[in-house]
């Protein structure tokens, strides 16, 4: 064992510049052996860049990295693994068409016979209670199982430092608890953990210390147990956190969007079939659909938006009118708008201007096309209005969609639909990869739209988002939708069990907590 006073990892004045951005500006902090250290910040704060330098994927422009007191350069990920640095990526670095075993073998630097590797994997899985079938193809696994592959892959190298990049963003509450058990066990064995997240209650529950980054600069290193979630959030965004403002005593109006017996066959070998989905959303109501990724959210979004019309015309109705077989364009004409999950290339065309992107969905409702001719001025005016109302950071309606940051483009896309005042709005992952400030603005805009009498459906994997935003909630699992429940009465462990479905894990009881 090394001297526990020497930090395992020490960063001094790490600086990294990209064209036009200073991603890390003289960042310094240290991690002790056995410490779980949080790295906290909004999207774009520079967390990922920083850990990529620790793991050797990028090189810092200035500053030094010390490992057990020794100054080092981490030339590449191989060198990092040799030092004992393991990393679990936010976007898993897995190979979908390969088996679990092959995926793990790819993460090993030495060639190991498949049989020996399998034995080693089983040993590690037993030691930490991680369950995996080595010969399954990755594309058939759940997100939680995929993450376990990454963790096993990292653990096989007996790491002294494990970097976890936003590990819980796609897990059910139970999976999060299981992960925490593994991480605590690792830390108790002396492994340091660098835990990147923006989920503050998790950091309070798990971490010994936290370093907060904002705009590439280190803001503070603090003890999460003495901070409140709010105080850390405010350090993170550098301002006061806005709560969602709701008018008290709201009443819902008539049913606007109703799905009844909505079934869609499986699309492709890795798709999920929708089975007998039923729900109704009233005027003024925000209806949330929770669930772990890959349980039919995509198919449901496609069916609701009209991108893939449904055979049964009456399975979806808007204000009583059957729309199942209508296209997305026809649905827009009856007052139903939608925002898909993927910003670039689905909700917006990256190399179109914002004005042109506004035409794509607003052409009929906002009078941008007359007799087949585009009214460019109307499009520019409307795009300008969206930019102004939603405080989109862009050079103007002529700016290319791809030139906007994720959060700003998402604000523009949401604004483009919301200002058309749809009767029904269906959105998927409205704040995916969006910073807290923009997310708060988007949430507020949705609440305001509902207050004007629109019915809103929000499909999201972020349970925290749904709990704070929605009035009513249902859970989708393997293409089936649970009965709706009022968010005010919902218990988080019950939602977690529904998310895990019949294959779900054991309830964790007292460890589970509402945030």
């Amino acid at each position, binding site marked *: 064992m090394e001297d526990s006073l020497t930090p395992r990892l020490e960063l001094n004045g790490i600086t990294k510049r990209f064209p036009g951005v200073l991603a890390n500006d003289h960042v310094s902090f240290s991690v002790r052996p056995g410490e779980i250290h949080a790295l906290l910040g909004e999207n774009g704060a520079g967390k990922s860049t920083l850990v990529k330098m620790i793991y050797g*994927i990028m090189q810092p422009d200035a500053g030094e990295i010390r490992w057990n007191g020794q100054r080092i350069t981490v030339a590449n*990920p191989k060198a990092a693994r040799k030092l004992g640095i393991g990393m679990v990526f936010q976007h898993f*670095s897995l190979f979908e068409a*390969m088996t679990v075993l092959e995926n793990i073998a*790819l993460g090993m630097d030495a060639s190991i016979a498949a049989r020996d590797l399998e034995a080693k994997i089983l040993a590690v899985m037993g030691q930490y209670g991680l369950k995996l079938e080595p010969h399954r193809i990755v594309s058939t696994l759940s997100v939680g199982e995929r993450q376990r592959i990454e963790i096993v892959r990292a653990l096989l190298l007996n790491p002294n430092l494990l970097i976890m990049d936003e590990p819980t963003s796609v897990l059910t509450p139970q999976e999060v608890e299981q992960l925490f058990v593994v991480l605590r066990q690792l830390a108790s064995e002396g492994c340091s953990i660098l835990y990147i997240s923006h989920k503050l209650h998790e950091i309070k529950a798990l971490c010994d210390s936290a370093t907060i980054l904002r705009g590439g600069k280190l803001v503070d290193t603090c003890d999460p147990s003495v901070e409140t979630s709010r105080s850390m959030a405010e350090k993170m965004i550098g301002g006061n956190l806005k709560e969602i403002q709701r008018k008290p005593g709201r009443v819902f109006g008539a049913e606007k969007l109703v799905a009844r017996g909505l079934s869609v066959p499986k699309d492709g070998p890795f798709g999920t079939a929708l089975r007998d989905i039923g729900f109704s959303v009233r005027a003024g109501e925000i209806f949330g659909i929770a669930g772990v990724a890959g349980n039919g959210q995509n198919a449901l979004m496609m069916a609701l938006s009209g991108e893939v019309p449904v055979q049964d015309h009456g399975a979806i109705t808007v204000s009583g009118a059957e729309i199942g077989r209508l296209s997305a364009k026809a649905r827009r004409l009856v007052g139903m708008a939608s925002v898909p999950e993927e910003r670039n290339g689905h909700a917006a065309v990256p190399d179109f201007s914002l004005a042109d992107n506004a035409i794509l969905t607003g052409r009929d409702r906002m009078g941008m096309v007359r007799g087949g001719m585009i009214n460019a001025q109307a499009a520019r005016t409307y795009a300008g209005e969206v930019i102004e109302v939603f405080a989109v950071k862009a050079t103007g309606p002529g700016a290319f969609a791809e030139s906007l940051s994720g959060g700003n483009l998402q604000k523009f896309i949401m604004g483009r639909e919301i200002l058309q005042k749809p009767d029904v709005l269906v959105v998927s992952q409205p704040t995916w990869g969006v910073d807290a400030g923009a997310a708060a603005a988007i949430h507020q805009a949705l609440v305001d739209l509902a207050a004007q009498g629109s019915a809103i459906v929000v499909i999201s994997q972020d349970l925290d988002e749904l709990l704070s935003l929605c009035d009513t909630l249902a859970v989708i699992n393997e293409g089936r939708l649970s009965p709706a429940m009022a968010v005010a009465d919902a218990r988080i462990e019950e939602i977690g069990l529904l998310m895990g479905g019949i294959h779900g894990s054991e309830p964790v009881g007292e460890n589970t907590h509402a945030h």
Partner: protein
Amino acid sequence: MSAEFIILAIITIVGLTTPILLAGIGELVVEKAGVLNLGVEGMMLMGAISGFAVTVMTFNPWVGILGAAAGGAAASMLFAVFVLQLNSNQVATGLALTIFGPGLSSLLGVGFTGRIVMPFGSLFPASLAKDPIWQLFFGYSPIVYFALIMVPLTAWFLKSTRAGLILRAVGENDLSAHSIGYSVRKVRYGAIAFGGAMAGIGGAYFSMVITPMWAEEMTAGRGWIALALVVFAGWRMGRLLIGAYFFGILMALELYAKAAGFSFLPSQFWAAMPYVMTVVALTFISARGTAGSNAPACLGKPFLPST
């Protein structure tokens, strides 16, 4: 139908199959690494002239075959530099190679038109190939046996070796492979060079075995069949072998239909058969929804790491 006729037909089919099998094996490896090189036709012609020229100059077909592999690989490296270093569009660059290859090979071949080359000696004692039945097994050019050995060898390489695993990983998810620490570019250079060398040998089969002489554009579009073959095979080596022989039989039909004077269908119909069957097979496979599942996920996409 006499036994002699059947034996002769089989030998014809083997001869027609070998070039597309060789080029197909190469292209399958290239595509498994995530690169779509449409320039197979160009690389085959470069291999055909290189192999022929080297054989003329050295009087040794074995050295000539190495020359063919080198010629095909050199042509593929031109593609590789554009695609891997400059991130050019793979389809456009591959098409450019298809146009460039015939041109350059014709230019290089100016002095070689009308020459003939030393044939390969038989691999087996001549007495073995005397009997027509034995001829079926022992009567071919060494390149035929090479192609047949390369099928299981390449399949084993892809499936069971670490290098093969890394190659597939690069084709499946280049960014992940990069973030784990593999050099995507190096792997792809290697795969493209292999593909070029195999296409080159496939092309040399025309100039050194079938004719054996040099003529411009003598591969006559077989590079395209090799490309279709890879998709037809669903990126599986076993199916590639079956598919290659399936196409070989179709191409043989054209020859025999012409020879037999079938007049109820124009000969162009038979000539078009392999291409028509390609379309039919691809439609059938994609309708079953299984074609995509084995395709390398990064096929044809440029590798653009964030660093």
